[in-house]
């Protein structure tokens, strides 16, 4: 393989390694669970993304075959990461946060883990 191709692939691998490391370091450094959520949901996205781009480049330049699995991995990651973050955040809030510490909801009902939804005709 050409030198430039190898350079490009290693660049993406290094970038992804750095961001993966920063994400994990964030878990240690930040002080509460909600803050810690920010580290893995963001920094890891680019971390994994870098590896996937490097992998696509490698297979394209090495075999001339375009590999689509990486796009699927990215897609599934984008679908699942926010949901995991949301579950962890809600669990943390139920266990550790008082309603008074949160800003008021500007609609009629309060936040869903503290308040009941408005009763509809189907429920009654």
């Amino acid at each position, binding site marked *: 393989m050409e030198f430039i191709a190898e350079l490009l692939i290693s660049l993406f691998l290094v970038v992804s390694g750095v961001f993966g490391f920063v994400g994990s370091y964030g878990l240690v450094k930040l*002080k509460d669970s909600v803050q810690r*959520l920010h*580290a893995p*949901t*963001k920094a890891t996205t*680019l971390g994994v993304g870098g590896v996937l781009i490097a992998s696509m480049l490698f297979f394209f330049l090495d075999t001339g075959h375009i590999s689509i699995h990486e796009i699927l991995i990215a897609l599934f990651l984008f679908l699942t990461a926010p949901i995991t973050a949301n579950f962890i955040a809600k669990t943390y809030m139920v266990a550790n946060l008082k309603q008074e510490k949160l*800003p008021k909801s500007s609609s*009629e009902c309060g936040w*869903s883990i503290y308040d009941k939804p408005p009763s509809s005709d189907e429920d009654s």
Partner: protein
Amino acid sequence: MLARLIPHPLLSLALVLVWLALVNTFTLGNLILAIAIGLIIPMLTAAYWPDRPKLSKPLKSIEYVAIVIWDIVLANIEVAKIILFRKERDIRSRWVSVPLELTSPEAITVLAGTITMTPGTVSTMLSADAGCILVHCLNTDDPDGVRDEIKARYETRLMEIFE
């Protein structure tokens, strides 16, 4: 007739594309199998989709995806800077309440996912009547600015796509 055969054209298309991507090689046999899957699964699951989301401008979603991917790259760099170079006590986290104008569950789901993936914000909870979303900011001095940016940058675009 066509509506009964293909109750959910976008789902069928998505299934065909995902199947082809999964097998990773394009042959006629794979295409036929993909189309069969794209026809059968929506028919079997149609009962679970009583209200399908209507996309009024599907092409706008391409623009939306491009903007979100660009923001994700920026978000990564921004959050990495905060983690690496800020002292722990200088990180000012805030809760922000964002009123929603979107009403369809699908649009709100997309918005919540977008907020989680983009600059320094995680969406944590909806109000019980889904009229308002609670967002946690990693580091901000201007909660109102964050709220206005979410509404202007993402919500208005989603309104165009879904409603």
